């Protein structure tokens, strides 16, 4: 078996894991290919971003339509059930990808259950393609573990080999609980833990550019600092005096406030802020722009309300781009330091 299928919920770090593992295995002298049977794109007609990234990183000859041969969309069923046709496309593409590879890293859609209705969910495809599964767990509480166990067992019943689980984006405070409580519980159930990867901001934090892309709107200043990372989101609706307490507690934040709240925007600029989002289509006072320019903080003006902006931002998660060496190195480092990559490789043999 030379197929490794990476599964996990949205935001569990599948792309980072794919980047880390494939580059690590490549270093080990293996010919590694990347395959994403069901892709997605933010804009209809645009290629899957992970496919673009991996094609470049692994220097793959295959075209993007082969690396990500089908695309999911929230309304895919409206196009009719093209299950058989799509499966055939996927298999054809896989053949091409796998032809010259020692190892194919297969990435799942945003969630493993996507396109389950027509039998193209990740577990079914893993079974079709003969892949072993690496399941990523982004723990929030004990229920997260329940979900993972449920999924592991489902794979087992389906006859798909589960290589093991990796805990990703682990906040430092719960590392001990994972080691002391979760891992033994998984062991007892017969599921291996292949890694506990701590949260690193370079991988978990989105950039201001992503925020801009997601929210749209006008960039009033800070074109050159769109690569700043966003670690927190804060809404400013209180008085300056009470706001400062909150502002100071939060680092590298996006600060959302009305365009007419010059006082708040200026206060935020005196604390650690990655970007200011002004809502309601109200152009700010020039002084806000001047100060933001001095501080090099991007200011974004959107024409809808604060609540809508926050709702949109909830979709945000870290993303790796091909030219972002720092996050790519972090992804590899995470695999090297915190994952049993040797064990993964061995179990594929």
């Amino acid at each position, binding site marked *: 078996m030379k197929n490794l299928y990476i599964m996990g919920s949205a935001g569990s770090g599948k792309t980072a894991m794919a980047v880390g593992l494939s580059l690590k295995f490549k270093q080990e002298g293996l010919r590694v290919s990347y395959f994403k049977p069901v892709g997605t794109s933010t804009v209809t007609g645009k290629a899957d971003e992970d496919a673009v990234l991996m094609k470049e990183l692994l220097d793959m000859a295959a075209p993007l339509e082969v690396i990500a041969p089908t695309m999911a969309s929230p309304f895919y069923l409206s196009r009719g059930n093209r299950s058989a046709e799509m499966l055939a496309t996927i298999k054809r593409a896989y053949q091409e990808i796998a032809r010259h590879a020692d190892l194919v890293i297969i990435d799942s859609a945003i969630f493993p259950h996507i396109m389950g209705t027509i039998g193209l969910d990740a577990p079914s495809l893993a079974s079709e393609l003969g892949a072993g599964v690496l399941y990523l767990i982004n723990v*929030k*509480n004990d229920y997260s573990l329940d979900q993972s166990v449920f999924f592991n067992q489902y794979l087992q019943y389906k006859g798909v080999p589960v290589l093991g689980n990796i805990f990703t984006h682990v*906040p*430092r*405070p*719960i590392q*001990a*609980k994972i080691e*002391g409580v979760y891992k033994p519980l998984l062991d007892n159930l017969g599921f291996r833990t292949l890694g506990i990867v701590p949260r690193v*901001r370079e991988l978990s934090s989105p950039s201001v550019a992503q925020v801009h892309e997601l929210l749209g709107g006008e960039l009033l*200043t800070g074109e050159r600092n769109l690569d700043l990372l966003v*670690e927190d989101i804060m809404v400013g609706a209180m*008085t*300056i*005096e009470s706001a*400062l*307490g*909150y502002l*100071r*507690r*939060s*680092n590298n934040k996006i600060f959302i406030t009305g365009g007419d*709240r*010059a*006082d708040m925007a*200026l*206060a935020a*600029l*005196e*604390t*650690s802020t990655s970007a200011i989002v002004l809502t309601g289509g109200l152009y700010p*006072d*020039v*002084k806000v*722009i*001047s*100060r933001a*320019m*001095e501080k090099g903080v991007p200011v974004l003006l959107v024409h809808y309300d604060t609540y809508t902006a926050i709702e949109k931002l909830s979709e945000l998660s870290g993303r790796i781009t091909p030219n972002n060496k720092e996050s790519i190195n972090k992804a590899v480092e995470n695999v090297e330091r915190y994952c049993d990559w040797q064990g993964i490789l061995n179990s594929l043999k």
Partner: protein
Amino acid sequence: MEKTTSYLHNQPVLFGKKFMWDLCVGKVKAMADLTPLFNVKSVAIIGASNKPGKIGNVIVKNIIESGFAGKIFPINPKETEIEGLPCYSSVSQAPDKIDLAVVCVPAKFCPDVMEECGKTGIKYAVVITAGFKEVGPEGLELEKKLLFICKKYGIRMVGPNCVGIMDTHIPINTSFAAGFPVQGDIAFISQSGAMLVSIMDWAKSIGLGFSRVISLGNKADLNEADFIDAMADDPFTKVILCYIEDVHNGKYFLEAASRAARKKPVIVLKSGTSQAGALAASSHTGALAGSDLAYETAFTQAGILRARSMTELFDLATCFSYQPLPKGDRVAIVTNAGGPGIVASDAIEEARLTMARFDKETLDALRANLPAEANIYNPVDVIGDARADRYAFALEAVLKDPHVDSVVVLVCPTAVTDPENIAQRIIELHRKYPEKPLLTAYMGGMTLAKGVKILTRAKIPVFTFPEPAIRSIAGMVNYVRRMESRVEGEEIRYDDINPDKVKAIFYDVIRDRRSVLLGSEAAAVAEAYGISAAPVKLAISPEEAVALAESIGYPVVLKVASPKIMHKTDVGGVKIGLNNAEDVRNGFIEILENVQRYLPNVVPYGIEVSKMMPKGTELIVGMTRDMQFGPLIAFGLGGIYVNLLKDVSFRLAKGITHAEIAAMIAETKASTLLRGYRGEQPADMMSLIDMVARAAKLILDFEEISEMDINPVFAYPDGYSALDIKITIEL
């Protein structure tokens, strides 16, 4: 690389970029020597014009009309003569040395003009031109450029975007305001040009005189601190008035104002106190106004009198300028009607002044000479039919009284009142007793107008109603009180503190990319500075919590540890009075469940186990770092009612002394509790003062601490215990 000393010698040298920037934002600064600015002998008007109505023309005319005895050089390459004076194409063409350049060319030409001024050796400039920082980013760039040139050549600049300066003692009027004030002893420094021109016009109508009038404009170089400092030593200035929307540099402002307030009254109207006002100020000047609380505290500590309105600002100015300082707070009222006397008495009580109680001699004299219906006690009512003689008798009697520090005369226009004669007698008596402030309220309009004029001309403050008169006395008394109660003491010092320990803890926190310390870390920081904190340990599992509880000893308190949670009680993150292992184990899990319910995305660092301390008087000691004035310390009644009762007093940490801390504690109602309320044992005051001093030392030593809250502190008859400490640092 950064040759700061060269700058101080005004030599044009190259600076490091960082230093230049620090200079521009006011981080590096020496108080300006403005003596030459107030002694100019020659002035150039760059942008002078022949066209009536143009600013370049108004200024030339104003300088001529002000009676300036020095040389005037209009500069304009297109003209040969302006207002009868020979005009020059540039400052370098002027036949003589120029002391001051007044610049009114369009903004884009200002840098070149300033460069030329620099090369010619001009050391002072007033830039009238607008179109700089106030108009946006391009303007800001231009202003920085201008400032850079000033620093390069050692030019001290007023403005840009200002009205100019007026000086009645040189005399010179470099402003474009209409008219020139009469000579007087009030210096007026204003951030608003419009306010300044209005005031000048009004002051002229009532004959109020000024020594120097300065429009600050954008304060790119010279700011309020420089001028307050200069006016402190100005022999022609008796009172310093300031209208400001923000302070350019809190530290220098405090230094200058404290020094000046020791010599003469400094009265400040700081606008932007309301939230709407602050908003207007912030969009007006682009400055992030420091919080009003910080301003209030800073003003009090510097000995500045804060006026609450324009009226109060000038009422105070008039009284300080015209009248002597009162020796105490005892006020006597002389009136010809009962009602106004009562209103004045109420105002005296409200202003925390004292109604004077007359000497027996005074009472006897009043009784012997006033009609039987008159009231001889304070307020002295000479009744409605009183004419000038009776007023004069009563007034002299109270002025003579050693138990009277100041007098307010109230006059109501009855049919027999002769306001002009009364005014004359008041003036005579003020000359006879010049050491006591004498204020009047001429309560009326038409019939009293002449009397008002007579008094104003003789520099006796006249008000229409009693309350502003009393408020003005209160302002004067406050100034005197502050000067008397000024506690000079040693700055706090401790040898038993461990800054390295604190550094190490902060290092770990920063490495963890956190701004907020966990309770256990904060307690360790406090202990390193000798603050006695209740022992706190972090547990990451229920078993560990039980083990820690056993070692600390029951009863214990459990608190959620998370930098994301500001109010732990609100999210069910605190359990108190746990007495056994079972309770601790359950408490641990319950807290995690509660927190998850309220804040599903927050992952706690664990649960902190601390010793349950015996109940004492609950206090709070807090600190917030104001953007202008640095750390501000708060002391007050603590616990959950702190936000409700707001029994808190504040001080700036910088330069605080043990005596000042004692005074700060004494200001609160909590101090009554601490002294032992209703038979309770008094708290250990010395240890509390020591704790506040150590907290102050800590925040002064570590600039990265942006906020600190010790709430509650339990005060005991012997010592105290800091139960919950929150520290926020800047990464």
